[in-house]
């Protein structure tokens, strides 16, 4: 806290929240090891409801691992993770509960290649939420319109461009009506001309008030959409702040070095 007083920045502490003040995700004192290698060290971060947090940092800094821990694609080794009041533990019911409320978009899209776009989107609502087929399909069409590709419903993922696939992947996650969306470098595998169509969909989502954690290298997106930017290096959170603070007046030498390399 005294640190913050000294730098005078707004919300430079990762444990303060933006959004509407209500805590949606709370990570405290979290460690993660891969064998002997410590991928995450004593991570403390809170994300508020309706807040957009962008996580940046050099590769290998643990950004992806952090969000993969939040929906248990990786198991954390110490500390606590609480999503919307449910603590992530070994209890399978808690894990399922959190996964139902948390959508995730991957760098490689990970659409199901043997299912059509429509089936990709309706599968989880039908199996997990037990939605009737007709209702799930109507909902899926709405989502496809929202990501601006309703005409591709009956195609297979292999027939779509990368940008279209990623938008389907976003629609697939949204079909479960998640309270939180996690984005793991959603535009890193895309050809440059397709990046914007995906970012636009994500901006729409942010505007509609979705709680989002976005791992990305798109600084323009961070500047424009983020409520807070988290900078990570070597498995630790180095600096947190508003985009304004972050891009104009970074405090930590490590942050300045990183920004000077990419901007």
């Amino acid at each position, binding site marked *: 806290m005294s640190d913050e007083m000294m730098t005078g920045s707004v919300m430079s502490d990762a444990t303060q929240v933006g959004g509407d003040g209500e805590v949606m995700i709370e990570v405290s004192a979290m460690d993660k090891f891969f064998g002997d290698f410590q991928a995450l060290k004593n991570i403390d971060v809170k994300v508020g409801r309706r807040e957009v947090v962008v996580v940046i940092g050099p590769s290998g800094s643990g950004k992806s691992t952090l969000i993969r821990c939040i*929906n*248990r*694609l990786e198991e954390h080794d110490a500390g606590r993770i609480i999503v919307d009041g449910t603590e992530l533990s070994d209890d399978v019911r808690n894990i*399922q509960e959190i*996964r*139902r409320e*948390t*959508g*995730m978009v*991957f760098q*490689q899209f*990970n*659409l*199901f*290649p*043997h299912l059509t776009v429509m089936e990709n989107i309706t*599968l*989880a609502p039908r*199996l*997990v939420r037990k939605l009737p087929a007709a209702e799930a399909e109507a909902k899926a069409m709405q989502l496809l319109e929202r990501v601006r590709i309703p005409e591709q419903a*009956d195609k297979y993922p*292999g027939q779509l461009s990368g940008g279209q696939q990623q938008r389907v*992947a976003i629609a*697939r*996650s949204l079909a*479960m009506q998640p309270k939180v969306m996690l984005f793991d470098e959603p535009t890193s595998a895309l050809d440059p001309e397709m990046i914007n169509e995906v970012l636009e969909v994500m901006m729409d989502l942010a505007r509609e008030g979705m709680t989002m954690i976005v791992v990305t290298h798109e600084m323009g997106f961070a500047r424009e959409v983020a409520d807070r930017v988290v900078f990570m290096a070597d498995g630790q959170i180095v600096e947190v702040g508003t985009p304004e603070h972050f891009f104009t007046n970074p405090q930590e030498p490590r942050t300045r070095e990183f920004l000077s390399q990419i901007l």
Partner: protein
Amino acid sequence: MSRSERVTDWLKANLFRSTADSIVSVVVGAIALFVLFRIVRFVFVTGRWEIVETNLSLYVTGAWPDAEMWRLVATVLLAAFVSGLIAGFIARSREIEAGVEAVSLSPRARIIELVVRLWPLLLGLALVLALTRTVMPVLLVVSAAVAVVLGRMLGRLLPRRSPPWLAALAVVTLLGVVWLMANGVGLESWGGMLLNIFLAAFSITLCFPLGVMLALGRRSKYPVVRLLSVGYIELFRGAPLIALLLMVDVAIGFFLPQSIVPSSPVRAIIVFILFTAAYMAEVVRGGLQSVPGGQVEAAKALGLSPISTTFRIVLPQALRNVIPAIVGQSISLFKDTTLAGAAMGLADLLNSAQASTAQEQFRGQGLIVESLVFVLFLFWVGAYTMSRESQRLERRLGVGNR
């Protein structure tokens, strides 16, 4: 360029490009021509095919009594009709999926397409029919063809949400056919090609779910399940099939009371299932490994249960990737059914063929070659048809070009 110039060019480019090329071409060509000449001479001149002609029904249906022949006829017609029904339904579904109207081929184009696709099977049928002395088999084949066409036309009209019903119909048909057949003629008196097909069809169908379970078990997170699966697979892969067949034939009597020992064909089927499942498990495991980890992660992230993830996401992709290997296993099992004949003295095709050379009118005349050639031909027809159909399935499912 004239035709003869084109031929000369082709010969130069492909057979006589260099001196070494020319020598190889001439030598290999001479050997090939000689072998071809011997084969043609054997088939059309020196071969004495009356042994096959006389014993045709023994080779194909064994000692199946004439009075019960209607069961076979009913089975063939029913199977033809149901497969036609399913084929028609699938064809129509594909058209709808591709958003095209009914593909209307002219009857002539359609027949040419079928002949190109099924020529080994048609060749086999034609040969068997040519050797028959009665009109019944011809009638059966013709009416089976009619049943397929009829089923296919009806299948196109089925409502779109029928797959569960069709799957159920297929299973009921299979069970009904077995009941129909086994109820009239005890399994012990089955024989000929019919027995080989029956053993193979049953073993392949039943070893498949067991193989999938073992493959999944081998990747289970529970050490006990993993250990049991690995133990099972390695145990059966380490045993010669014929030794297992001999063992159930002889040794089972030591362990089980005579009254509950199943008949020989059933024992053979059990061995085939247990044995082939171990190989099937390894094939399926290869398929499971070919599915990228991101697929499971995406399914988990959506909140799918482990069971849904396995059966809706991983297995469909895994199995599609290993269709060639699965069919390879099935073909090899089909041919291995002759081992059951050898080990257990069943009257299967191979044994029937050998037995026929001992008949009074053919004894001591060296006709084993003729009968064995016919046996090989029938197995080749079955195996090659399976192989071609699997290649077609592969192309349709787009294996390797996703």
